[in-house]
């Protein structure tokens, strides 16, 4: 009775070993990208098949855009705080609240335009097919930035 049990154990070990090795090998590239400090850019290079030259250009564009993006992010955060404070302070829509909301909306729009400009510029560095895919992915988040691109497309 020992031999069948040993064989069952061997089958189990073979299955677990096969699973572990293949799963690790198959997911290692994506995990490595996720652990990379600049994983987003590494993913962009791989996902949109960028050549070293294309990637260098995109990285430069990214570096140039970053201060603009951070500044806009800060302005939006300040505007959002102002809106929140005004809403909390009043029971009705005051002219100040309306103005703050309008300012917030204008800022968001300004950010969208800047981002869209950057997205088009980056896509121009890619092959036509990849560029089209990239624009579709990035612009799907223009309206609802918190939502995943794929979930928006699914809807």
């Amino acid at each position, binding site marked *: 009775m020992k031999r069948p049990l040993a064989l069952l154990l061997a089958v189990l070990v073979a*299955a677990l070993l096969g699973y572990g090795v*293949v799963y690790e090998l198959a997911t290692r590239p994506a995990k490595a990208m996720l652990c990379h400090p600049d994983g987003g850019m590494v993913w962009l290079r791989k996902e949109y098949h960028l050549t070293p030259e294309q990637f260098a250009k995109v990285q430069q564009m990214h570096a140039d855009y970053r201060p603009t993006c951070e500044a806009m992010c800060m302005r939006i955060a300040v505007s959002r705080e102002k809106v929140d404070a005004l809403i909390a302070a009043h029971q009705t829509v005051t002219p100040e609240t309306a103005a703050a909301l309008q300012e917030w909306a204008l800022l968001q729009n300004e950010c969208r335009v800047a981002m869209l400009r950057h997205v088009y510029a980056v896509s121009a560095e890619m092959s036509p097919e990849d560029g089209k895919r990239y624009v579709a992915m990035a612009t799907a988040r223009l309206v609802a930035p918190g939502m995943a691109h794929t979930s928006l497309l699914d809807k």
Partner: protein
Amino acid sequence: MNDSLQKRLAEWQVDLEAPPRFEAGVWARIAAEESARRTVFDRVGDWLAAAFYQPRLAAVAVTLGLALGIGTAFVKAQDSNALLTRQLESRYMETINPLAHGGGGQS
């Protein structure tokens, strides 16, 4: 009388020969009765035990286990990679989208 009987009994020799394969037949009948009492699970267990003693079948079983593990890993890795890709996509988008940091009303 008793002495005479004892003497006769002592002299009596039985000269009987068992029919051919008599012993094998007895064992076969015993085995058949035992077999009739065995459940399906007993039979399957016996069959498996016998099968595991054959090296070729053992090798097939281990190979099947390995193949099952590898196949499952491929399917699972696809799901995991899709999830990791979404996370990477989000991470990239956060670096170019000022609205992705909570100021855009999605916090």
